[in-house]
């Protein structure tokens, strides 16, 4: 059995090399790496700022009144504790919250998700404009800015690129290869040999997982991105690659031709990629995205890479991805047994 799986996996890798899939795997991380160089040049429009205030903190009445008056620029949310503020910040319910500064008693400290972001600049500019309007130029209301995440823009966008790579292999590469084997009757040819259906399926799963791991490692090598908790990180890359490879195989079985597999792949690729990747920028997407398997992968990867999270924090997400992988594998197996659209 193992011998057959190894033979089939090596054959699949050779096919991936021959049909140029491997070039795609190398090209995408390179494309991502180059794109990252331009991330800092993006701009962002000034929008209404959701600012949090802690109920038990004694803020200067002038500041409170000024913030309330500037209701087109600031929307105030009252928070019970600093912990709640941190949670709301992570959940993107607020853009930042104010604390009493420990260094300067009459000034405030701003806590934001990311220090080096245009959102933080917008808050500081808003405060500065408000202060000038109320008091004229005097001592700054904001004495210090702290952030929950302390990494650069490149690293902050890394989870999105990782998600993109995983979904690309899962929804574009794998379904097309399955459909090609069906279209050219290669799969039926292999099933005329003593190869069990489950062996063929496992070989395809390994193909997807190997391609995803190669792409992720290549991206890390190119960008020199370090991983603190590599065990947790690769536990999620592993389960994510299993889940989306399996999903991709299932999609491949739903198609008779490569062309339809590519189309179906893109139809799944974008709706799974965009809501998860953009959930950081939209409250609505943030509340909707968790139903998607892509978000269950993206969330932990982001936390592991940026917030020092570990696999122990996300057991449900890991189980969710594993379950989706197992269910889609089972469906693929049943379709293979029925010689579906072959």
């Amino acid at each position, binding site marked *: 059995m193992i011998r057959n799986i190894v*033979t*089939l996996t090596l054959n699949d890798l*050779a096919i991936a090399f021959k049909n140029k899939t491997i070039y795609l795997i190398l090209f995408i991380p390179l494309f991502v790496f180059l794109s990252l160089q331009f991330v800092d040049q993006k701009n962002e429009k000034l929008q209404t700022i959701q600012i949090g205030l802690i109920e038990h903190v004694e803020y200067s009445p002038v500041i409170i009144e000024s913030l309330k008056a500037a209701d087109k620029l600031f929307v105030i949310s009252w928070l019970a504790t600093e912990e709640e503020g941190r949670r709301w910040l992570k959940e993107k319910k607020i853009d930042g919250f104010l604390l009493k500064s420990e260094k300067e008693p009459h000034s405030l400290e701003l806590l934001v998700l990311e220090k080096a972001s245009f959102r933080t600049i917008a808050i500081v500019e808003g405060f500065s404009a408000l202060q000038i309007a109320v008091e004229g130029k005097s001592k700054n209301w904001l004495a210090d800015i702290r952030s929950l995440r302390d990494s650069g823009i490149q690293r902050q966008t890394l989870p999105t690129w990782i998600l993109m790579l995983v979904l690309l292999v899962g929804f574009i590469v794998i379904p097309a290869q399955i459909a090609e084997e069906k279209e050219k009757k*290669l799969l039926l040819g292999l*099933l*005329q*040999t*003593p*190869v069990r259906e489950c062996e063929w399926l496992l070989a395809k799963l390994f193909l997807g997982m190997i391609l995803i791991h190669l792409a992720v490692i290549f991206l890390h090598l190119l960008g020199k991105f370090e991983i603190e908790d590599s065990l947790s990180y690769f536990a999620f890359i592993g389960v994510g690659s299993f889940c989306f490879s399996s999903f991709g195989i299932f999609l491949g079985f739903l198609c008779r031709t490569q062309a339809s597999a590519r189309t179906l792949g893109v139809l799944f690729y974008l709706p799974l990629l965009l809501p998860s990747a953009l959930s950081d920028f939209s409250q609505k997407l943030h509340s909707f995205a968790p139903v998607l398997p892509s978000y269950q992968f993206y969330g932990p990867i982001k936390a592991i890479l940026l917030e020092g999270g570990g696999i122990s924090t996300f057991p449900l997400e890991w189980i969710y991805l594993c379950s989706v992988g197992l269910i889609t594998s089972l469906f693929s197996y049943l379709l293979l047994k029925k*010689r579906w659209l072959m």
Partner: protein
Amino acid sequence: MLIEVQKLAKVYNGTRGLLPASFGVEQGELIAVVGHNGAGKSTLLKMLASWIIPDSGEVLVDGINLKNRMALVRKIGFVPETPNLFDFFSVEYNFKLFARLFQIPFSRIEEILKEFNLLTYRHNKVQVLSKGLKQRVSIGRTLLADPPVLLFDEPTSGLDFEMTKEVYRLLKSTHASGKTILFTSHRPEEIKTLATRIMLLHQGSLVFDGPPQEYFQSKIYENLYA
């Protein structure tokens, strides 16, 4: 009886396919399965090769049930109308892949390459070969595992005269080595030249089963083809 088929049936979209058919095949027979397009010839062969799952019926090949695919693949070899080879790889790679999966020694590949005059093409990618050569590679790959029963779906379809003759030669020599062969065909001269028995399918039903002389003199042949 080497092959026993009982009420084998497959229906596509309510009409097409194969209506329940029963027959037996003795070892060493060379059977031509004939009929118009859509008569059910390819469906019959593909069901015997486990390419299509039958709706109903029983098939035993040398005592092995059709449902036992893992055992049956060593008994039945199927050569489809369009060769299903990994065409971006060489002839040798295609042979080696199947030899590994069947756990056959590579020395067998040398025998087949020699027997099928493919030694000079062994390192050529399949995609650059002519259809006739691809068909030879496809037949050779099927014979690697040395199955006692061989199924050929339209083996000379789209081949020129020379390549057709070459395929006839291969079929005859394979049959002479003791194999049981079923092939589908539209060509009367092919059927006359090769077959020892003819099975005529019409609209999914088996309407004639007998020797070639009887077939060509039968009323049913006259009605359908003359």
